[in-house]
């Protein structure tokens, strides 16, 4: 029963809200287990055409651990951490599958990426690489993308969480997409 876990998470989110900068780090191990569990559950689902949506999963985790009737700020914070973890989990999974060439199973879908044709384990890994590259050049931009892709946070929420202006978020997001697209298509040609 995640009740105890749930109250721990809620407390940490509250501390974060009140300005405790160490809270996010403490959240990570708590969330990681829960997210992995959820991800595995969905990924192992018996339906062959099952699609895993990262943001839906994060949302589900949030509901389980914190509940829907809480402070919006807490949600954004939660998702900020969760989205990074989700990215890790999914990439691990994709690597595992790519390595063993297992077919069938689960398609992983990430928010907003359909238009970019990202559909499959190798694409996810390519995205991960590209995103890591982007984060190296511009760490904040990478975070924004992560929160959007893997966590489904909206621009206002991202702006709130990171403490930057809305305009910055919009601009970073728009240009990141373009850069990632180019990066990934180049990789393809190679």
């Amino acid at each position, binding site marked *: 029963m995640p009740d105890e876990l749930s109250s721990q998470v809620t407390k940490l989110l509250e501390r974060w809200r009140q300005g405790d900068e160490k809270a996010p780090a403490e959240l990570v191990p708590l969330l990681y287990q829960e997210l992995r569990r959820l991800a595995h559950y969905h990924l192992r689902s018996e*339906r062959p055409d099952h*699609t895993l*949506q990262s*943001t*839906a999963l994060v*949302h589900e985790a949030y509901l389980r651990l914190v509940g829907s009737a809480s402070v919006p700020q807490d949600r954004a914070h939660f998702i900020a951490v969760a989205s990074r973890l989700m990215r890790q989990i999914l990439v691990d999974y994709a690597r595992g599958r790519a390595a063993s060439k297992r077919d069938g199973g689960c398609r992983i*879908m*990430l*928010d*907003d990426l*359909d*238009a*970019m*044709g990202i559909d499959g384990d190798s694409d996810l890994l390519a995205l991960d690489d590209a995103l890591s590259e982007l984060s190296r*050049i*511009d760490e904040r*931009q990478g975070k924004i993308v992560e929160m959007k892709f893997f966590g*489904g946070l*909206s*621009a206002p929420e991202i702006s709130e969480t990171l403490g930057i202006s*809305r*305009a910055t*978020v*919009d*601009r*970073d*997001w*728009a*240009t990141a*997409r*373009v*850069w990632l*697209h*180019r990066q990934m*298509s180049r990789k393809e040609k190679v």
Partner: protein
Amino acid sequence: MKTERWESLKDLLHQAMLLAPEKRDSFLDKVCSSDRSLRGELESLLAAEEDLRSSFMQSPTLADELLAGAGNPVSDGKLSPAQTFAQRFRLIRRLGQGGMGQVWLAEQISPVRRQVALKLIKAGMYDEAVVRRFRSERQALAIMDHPAIAKVFDAGTTEQGQPFFVMEYVPGVPITDYCDQKTFTIGQRLELFAHVCEGVQHAHQKAIIHRDLKPANILVVEVDGKPVPRIIDFGLAKAVAAKADDETMFTQLGSFVGTPGFMSPEQADPTSVDIDTRTDMYSLGVVLYVLLTGVLPLDVSIRGQPLAETLRKLREEEPQRPSTRVSSDCASSTAAATARGTEPAQLVGLLRGDLDWITMKALEKDRARRYGTPSELAADIHRYLNHEPVLARPAAVSYRLRKYARRHRVGVSVAVVLALLLVGFTVLQAAQLRRTTRERDRANRERDRATRITDFMTGMFNVSDPDQARGNSITAREVLDKASSSINQSLQNDPDLRAQLLMAMGRVYDNLGLYSQAQSLHQSALDIRQRIFGPKNFATLGAAEEVSWDLSQLGRYQEAENLSRSALDVARQALGPDDPYTLNAMYNRGWILGLQGRFGEAEQVDRETVDRRRRVLGPENRDTLNAMNNLAEALQDQGKYAEAVALQQQTLAIQRKVLGPDAQGAVDTMTNLGVSLSAEQHYAEAEKLYRDALDIDRRVLGPEAPNTLRIRLDLAVNLHEQHRFAESEMLDSQTLEIARRVLGSTHPHVLAVMNNIALTLENDGKYRESENVYRQLIELERNTYGPDDPRTLATSESLGEVLMDQNRLTEAKKILEDTVVVERRVLGSDNPATSLTIYNLACIAARSQRPQEALSLLSDAVEHHLKPESMLQIDQDTDLKSLHRNPKFATIVARAKAKAAGQQKLN
């Protein structure tokens, strides 16, 4: 790439992205001047952006982000009250902000002074192409003139090229809010909604589709105290949509215009290429749903779901019926009920049935199955309000066909619905006719002492013959049981007489519907006769025929058919092919083939019987007429209703002439004809026949005679088909009351009525009540007929189905699995009834996400004589929808159709 370089690059990139494509080159010239690497970098990124843009769809959030804060100098943030706009308007105040842009209340200064609503199309949503298109739409929009549609006076562009609409200012409230505020009842809401439909109809006739119908666009104002709907924004979506070549909802920039909750499935489908008026139909359906229940049919909040998932839901997920939704969604139902001036339970009751059907028809995923026009929808709503039958209710035969395939074996003369109704009818009708055939044959023949004695015996037992009884059949039963046990001891010296008595008593058991006991008595008679007369004797054959009849009643069709076939062979050999007795055997065989579902073969045999009897006995002979009736039933069973009707009409005409209009044979044909006419949907004609038949039997046999009661049942079914449910249920319950009193609570007719009532309730959506009746019925049948009797099995199958209706799949599965075990044992695997149960199990598996199981069960059912009507409808059965994408499903469907066609071709 270095971080600092990226910072400045990012900035430039972003600025360039905001420019129209043709302006970018000059921008790059300006900012890059001679920096070739910078330019190269920017160009490649912009190329990537172009690539992204042209892909199919992007998320609304992205588009919003891209566009919000777009720094177009003429943009919206700059407007303020009292400002003059486009030279002719003075802005008063901002009314709101929509997906397309701002809406302002303004005063038009010239050419006329009036208050208008100005709808501005925001920056980023238009370009040259849009503006051009916009201008051409003006004309179309201006010609609409209907009280329910807010007028679009004009459309124009500012000096800077920003498009705007000038519309009638509607100081109204969204329709859903209005109804809630006024706590409008369901009836009041429907009236209002019907007006909305009329408005949309007007627009559609002018070839203008709204595409974004939702409560926010359907405002209600009060004119002289009466609520009047006004639909706003008609045609705006199309005008703004930029792609001129296909009518999609996506602008060139990829942001999509549409409100997910109200979007039609085809709008949510990226591959669909055209949107037509039926898209508005769907949105109207959603609005209706919300008006009735207070909630959206599908949960499509974008938040927390990727867009693709939202759209997929819209395309694929079936919403719950309004009544189901309200009854299951306790959180919102109290509020919803209060807003409608009622209680949750009552609200569910109001919605269940016709309103459910109307709403669901408007919300069909397949747009071909929705209402064709808004006026059709309005018409059905008016029908509902006037308590007339609603067209949306699915024709029971196509919707429920598989359900009723069982009914005939309950020995019920009629079932609630068409094809199955026919089969059910066949049994009792054929039984009646057969019986009469035998009697008349024997009376005519005067060949055999046995015959006379049998008659005498039957006469002695007449008091316990329910067809003439007024008393409790249980008493008769006791008498009979006693007699049948004592007969084994007596008459050892006169086996001939003993056999005759056995035959007679068996016949009485038959009349009581106790076929198992009848069969054993008849079998004993057969054994005796075979021993003393040999197999080729007429009396022996007679006994064989009785046994075969009993076996068929017990559902042991193969044994019955074997016996009837060998009896026929013997008769042919011993008596010749045209001997009336041989023809009896042929008649019998045809009927049994019908029971087995081998309708094509049955038709062949029946035709031969009719032809020969016509030739040998004459076209007006009673036996000939009976055979014609039998043939008609075989035709009905194959869906050849037109032929059946013609034949029955012919038969009826002769019967009336030869036997007199009040003859029982004529009455039977009348009810049969009623069934065929109903199959062709001539319900009113059928009703007339039933009423006439009822009058005759009431007069001739008495108002409480079993046959009279049976016709009442038929009439109740007919009323049900005409959606006169209240009358139908009342007739059924009255009949049930009489039947219980007259025949005893375990009499087949009584149980038949109960079955009908359960069916009516089920078809009416009253699943709980239906379930209760079925459960009672099973108990009675178990005690009366035994747990292995086909009727008991049929009822447990029905119970399984009504549990499926309530989505109690686990319970249904248990019951059906138990049933199928017994069916396999008792009826055999090649039996339509067994196959139907397996089919239902397939449906359960499909609904429970076990596709492999479902497919294998389905295949099983198809291979083992599933009824042709069911086989032809497999691909339309909504329960099996989840299998549609599986290639194996298509194979099975093809096979089923081939089989069904093959069976029909057998003639």
